[in-house]
């Protein structure tokens, strides 16, 4: 069985968010991590590997530096890494990204594709289902459990009000929730191997059945009209309660003023 996991390198919010003067994210100034939903997807794939000996390939699209996230995945236990990078791919929206990844995936063998539900930088949750659509695969989004059952997968698909247990024949695509599992750490030995592991690089020429007009910025139907860091509501009043009664009287007074009570 061959599993391909799509992963993305994203800025880490834990170290704080940095902005450029024009309000866009200063990605260069922030540390990067493997996107959490993707990491859960990778862990799901590695558990299938542990149980069945499946081969796990990780693929990412990005700048050459994104190879870091592939090495991390290999240090966790993935077998192979594929980096899709080319100048013409820059500025892609979810359509162009999914078109690109679909083009790369057509060049690879797979029974199962796993993506994270959404990336913490874009928060779109669109690339997974769009890849499936481009490849003509069944998609099961929001997976909280994944089991392989012969030539099918059985997935716990979460909804706002419960879940469905869904069965799909492979090949298919699953989008993983970070609640799916607790991803494993790398191992020190895995790191030493990963830095020497060969990463396959795909450029524009390697993408199968993809038109130039569907790539990068010019292949992106959505365009940014405006971007900025969020203007927040200003702070209101604040008192330091010298005693609990102080605080209580203050709040009750405000609630009365506003006719809440």
């Amino acid at each position, binding site marked *: 069985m061959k599993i391909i996991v799509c992963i993305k390198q994203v800025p880490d919010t834990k170290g704080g968010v940095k902005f450029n003067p024009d309000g866009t994210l200063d990605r260069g100034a922030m540390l990067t991590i493997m996107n959490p939903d993707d990491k859960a997807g990778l862990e799901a794939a590695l558990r299938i590997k542990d149980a069945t000996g499946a081969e796990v390939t990780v693929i990412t699209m990005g700048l050459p530096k994104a190879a870091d996230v592939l*090495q*991390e995945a290999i*240090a966790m236990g993935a077998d192979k890494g594929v980096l899709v990078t080319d100048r013409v791919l820059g500025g892609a929206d979810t359509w162009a990204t999914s078109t690109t990844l679909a083009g790369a995936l057509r060049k690879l063998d797979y029974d199962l594709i796993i993506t994270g539900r959404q990336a913490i930088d874009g928060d779109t949750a669109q690339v997974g289902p769009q890849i499936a659509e481009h490849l003509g695969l069944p998609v099961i989004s929001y997976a909280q459990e994944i089991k392989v059952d012969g030539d099918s997968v059985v997935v716990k698909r979460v909804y706002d009000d419960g879940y469905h247990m869904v069965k799909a024949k492979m090949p298919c695509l699953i989008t993983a929730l970070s609640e799916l599992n607790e991803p*494993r*750490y*790398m*191992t*020190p*030995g*895995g*790191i*030493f191997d*990963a*830095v020497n592991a060969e990463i396959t690089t795909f450029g524009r020429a390697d993408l199968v059945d993809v038109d130039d007009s569907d790539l990068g910025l010019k292949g992106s139907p959505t365009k940014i009209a405006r971007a900025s860091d969020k203007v927040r509501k200003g702070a209101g009043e604040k008192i330091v309660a010298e005693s609990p009664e102080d605080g209580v009287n203050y709040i009750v007074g405000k609630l009365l003023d506003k006719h809440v009570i």
Partner: protein
Amino acid sequence: MDFTLDKKYEMAQNLFKDFAQNEVKPLAQEIDEEHRFPRETVDKMAKYGFLGIPVPKELGGQGCDILTYAMCVEELSKVCGTTGVIVSAHTSLCVDPIVTYGTPEQKAKYVPDLASGKKLGAFGLTEPGAGTDAQGQQTKAVLDEATGEWILNGSKCFITNGKEADVYIVIAVTGVVEKRGRKMKEISAFIVEKGTPGFSFGTKENKMGICASSTYELIFTDCRIPKENLLGQKGKGFSIAMHTLDGGRIGIAAQALGIAEGALETTINYVKERKQFGRSIAQFQNTQFQLADMATKVEAARLLVYKAARKKDEYQAGAKVSYSVEAAMAKLYAAEVAMEVTTKCVQLHGGYGYIKEYDVERMMRDAKITEIYEGTSEVQRMVISANILN
């Protein structure tokens, strides 16, 4: 000299940092207060190969090196000195001598289980009457010619991983030899397994720091161990012990470095938040200068520790070098920096620093032992001065 770290070390540091933050830090205060050995953490470290970092892959280890191992102890110790020393004592004092001096059979029998963390290791040299002075050893091993077994009698004290370990390296007197006309004790090293009849545990030490570390007395009463459990040549036990401690000192130096760094990081955050006289105490020049001095010393300690680790890596790779002096310097300096930095960090915390809720209180207690075990600072000075005067 190259001061930059390869990417693999950066990745390994990130791994150890993440693990320490997520798995070790949340327990640090609790296990200290309860004096409870963190078995759950040891199991997790075993799962991720942290107990066999410098061990070759053929023996079930991670196939990394001493520098990576030192970084692991450092990062763990930043949040919990106890967890750091568990890894250090296991790796440097038990696994390393078996890998270095063991027969192929001994290696095959013990190392894979130790490197995978299925078993934990410890090392017994110190006795009530003999610390770093090996000639004061009283524990005896006598060969029973009839059965071919060694019979051990005596006791070892202050043994890290004491009751929790499964495999112990034990140093014992196996006879008397004459050297330059003087009668000297002949010392040998043995591998002793937990559960061997006649091997029991004495008092659990109630310590000032590294409280969650299992520190016990080992007692041997007509304890019979197989002949093949002699480690290295008979009579080479002292040199095995000394060589083992050279490596151990790198681990303890890394522990001390980690404790100092942990205290400094915590304190930097604290002084930014803590307000006195209407401004954060980070704005006072006294605070700033103290932090500057501490950061400089910590950085110097790091360079010494990493250099000693790299020197041992060169040695392991086959270079004819000794890392004994580097290890002694690293341990001496890092331990004294740890004590100084944690003491100052407690001071910068004021009253809060003296309260157990704040990490620096524990860190200051944990730091002290690094100046004592695996050769006191005085012994390190002896090692260093003997080398420079030679």
